[in-house]
């Protein structure tokens, strides 16, 4: 890439966006980056700022809310857009999720279209655009939809369709859920999986939707960042959908619950509370349980149950994410979940239990 050319990165303030940006800049000393942020005063480039320019904008706005000067700069210099930014809240209403995830992608695609040179559009999606589909999920865009568990999944699915329709040169990355930084298990950013684990440890999970075939496909930041940094700008990735997932290294849900339970049960104080390992149930039974909690639960148990309801039904829709395209392009795959899961659990609770389990003391 010529020295005057740059990449535009959205979501660079996030854990994954920042990690990929660092890798891209480290891999090419000539590369410059423009990062799109909501508030430029909060951007800190962590030593990268010499080649990073922060510009203010808002994905939700037509034209991204860019000034004319910034718009011109991007049009002239940008040769690739790496799009991480997303509203990842599973509980969002559809319109709110679409405003950032779908319309935001559309606005970026319009900007890419206006650029003077052909632009690579590297779109970071999610493995869960597969929604309610079950079985083997291929690295492709043409599978018919079976509906979605939450608005986040749907809005990201719609964004993928826009990318395919409007980008001339694209690559789509579909990471599974990121649960820790690397195989040592450190957790820098909490998400729904961690919140669910905390509820499990606190004895507040009555049941989990799932089947004998359900698996947990989770990955590390390290793997996903390395994969995206490797492929985002590579010519041979054009037109590819890459599952950045554990794939056949995912853990059966039952095994994961058992090994986590056994790990905690080594602590006699936890064990003597008699917390039961939540059983797996079909979606109808789980829905009946949720309905009952809505009708009779106190506010705190309602809140806890709702916090799970936007993603746990996905567990009863067993999937195996195919990873052959990603592996072939990368030459490496994701670490098996078994390799880092318990280390992640250990780190997550290294500072003791959260207040969730301490209602007696309260």
């Amino acid at each position, binding site marked *: 890439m010529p020295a005057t050319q740059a990449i535009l990165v959205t979501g660079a303030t996030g854990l994954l966006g920042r990690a990929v940006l660092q890798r891209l800049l480290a891999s090419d000393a000539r590369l410059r980056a423009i990062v799109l942020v909501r508030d430029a005063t909060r951007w800190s480039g962590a030593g990268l700022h010499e080649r990073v320019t922060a510009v203010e904008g808002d994905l939700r706005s037509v034209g991204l809310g860019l000034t004319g000067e910034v718009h011109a700069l991007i049009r002239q210099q940008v040769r690739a857009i790496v799009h991480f930014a997303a509203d990842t809240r599973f509980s969002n209403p559809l319109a709110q999720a679409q405003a950032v995830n779908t319309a935001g992608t559309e606005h970026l695609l319009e900007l890419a279209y206006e650029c003077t040179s052909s632009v690579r559009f590297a779109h970071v999606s999610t493995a869960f655009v597969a929604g309610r589909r079950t079985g083997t999920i291929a690295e492709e865009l043409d599978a018919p939809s079976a509906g979605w568990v939450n608005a986040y999944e749907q809005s990201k699915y719609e964004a993928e369709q826009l990318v395919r329709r409007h980008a001339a040169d694209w690559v789509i990355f579909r990471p599974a859920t990121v649960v820790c930084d690397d195989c040592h298990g450190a957790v820098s950013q909490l998400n729904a999986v961690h919140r669910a684990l905390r509820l499990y440890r*606190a*004895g*507040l*999970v*009555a*049941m989990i939707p799932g089947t004998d075939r359900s698996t947990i496909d989770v990955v590390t930041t390290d793997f996903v960042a390395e994969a995206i940094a490797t492929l985002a700008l590579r010519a041979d990735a054009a037109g590819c959908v890459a599952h950045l997932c554990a794939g056949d290294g995912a853990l059966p849900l039952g095994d994961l619950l058992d090994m986590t339970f056994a790990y905690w049960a080594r602590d006699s104080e936890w064990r*003597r*509370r*008699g*917390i*039961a*390992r*939540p*059983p797996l*149930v*079909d979606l*109808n*039974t789980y829905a*009946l*349980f949720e309905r*009952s*909690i809505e*009708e*009779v*639960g*106190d506010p*705190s*148990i309602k809140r*806890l149950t709702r916090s799970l309801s936007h993603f746990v039904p996905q567990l009863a829709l067993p999937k195996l994410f195919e990873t052959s395209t990603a592996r072939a392009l990368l030459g490496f795959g994701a670490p098996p979940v078994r390799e880092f899961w318990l280390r992640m659990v250990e780190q997550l609770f290294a500072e003791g239990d959260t207040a969730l*389990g301490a*209602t*007696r003391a309260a």
Partner: protein
Amino acid sequence: MSAPGITGVAYALPARRRSLTELAKLGQLESDSSLLAQFGFDGVYVAEEETPYALALAAATAVLTEHKVPANDVDLLLYCGTSALAFSPRGSAADVARRLATTGRFQYPATRLQYDLGLERASTIALDQLACTSLFAALRLARATIAAGEARRVLCVSAEFFPECAGREAIFNVTADAACAVLVERAAPQNRILSSAVSTKGYYWDADALRNEIVASYFPTAKHVVDETLQRAGWSPHDVTWVIPHNVSVRSWEILLGLVGIPRERLWDHNVARIGHTLAGDNFINLRDAIDDGSVRPGDRLLLFSYGYGAHWTALAVEA
């Protein structure tokens, strides 16, 4: 094959039945009565004149009479119920306080029942603090005593009231007053007890403080206990002909049946609406009625499960 089993069940209910609408008007419900109706409740029996002891005596007399059991042929009497309440009309709290403050506290219903029934050979043991699982515990104890060769026939009696000052709702269940008596014998031709399981989790002793944790633990622990009971009986969930429940919310039963994999239509739930939830022995009252109405036939495989609020989960596998 002979095994200890249930040879007779009888129960006694107070004369007065009150509908959900009446209870709501009296301020004895915490939840909207329409929600409780959705959960399967319609009304409950409320003791307005009777004492727990009077109902216990009526139930025990009935079971001995119906099965022509000579009074001197009972080896052990197991009594379940709060002894301080036993002689108080309507379960009067004021009367309980008076008894506890005097030597009236030594007036025990188990002893009096042994005398009133003329069970001259029977020793007595009282069970308490197990909430809705007391009668299950009595049956387990009876079975173990028989297996040890220390008794051939055991009379288990349970009588539980809610004091008049208490409401009629406990954790979205509408509660009734009742007494139930069960005969357990060494070689029962029917209703043989094939297996049992119990789980007590003392952590939940302070049930009010841990209500959310209890809500979460109820279902997984219930599933564990049911699974264990079925496994010990050598049954799969599909082998169960009838689930004879404790009369808590039908909704909660539907969730539990989904968890354990037993079809909904195998739940014998007729008495949830008719009687409501008694602490005294829903499952055995229901067993009696399910036999009487012809639902349960010889050879049927019955699963009885109950939960004692807070810390106790228990189940029995019975071959009718």
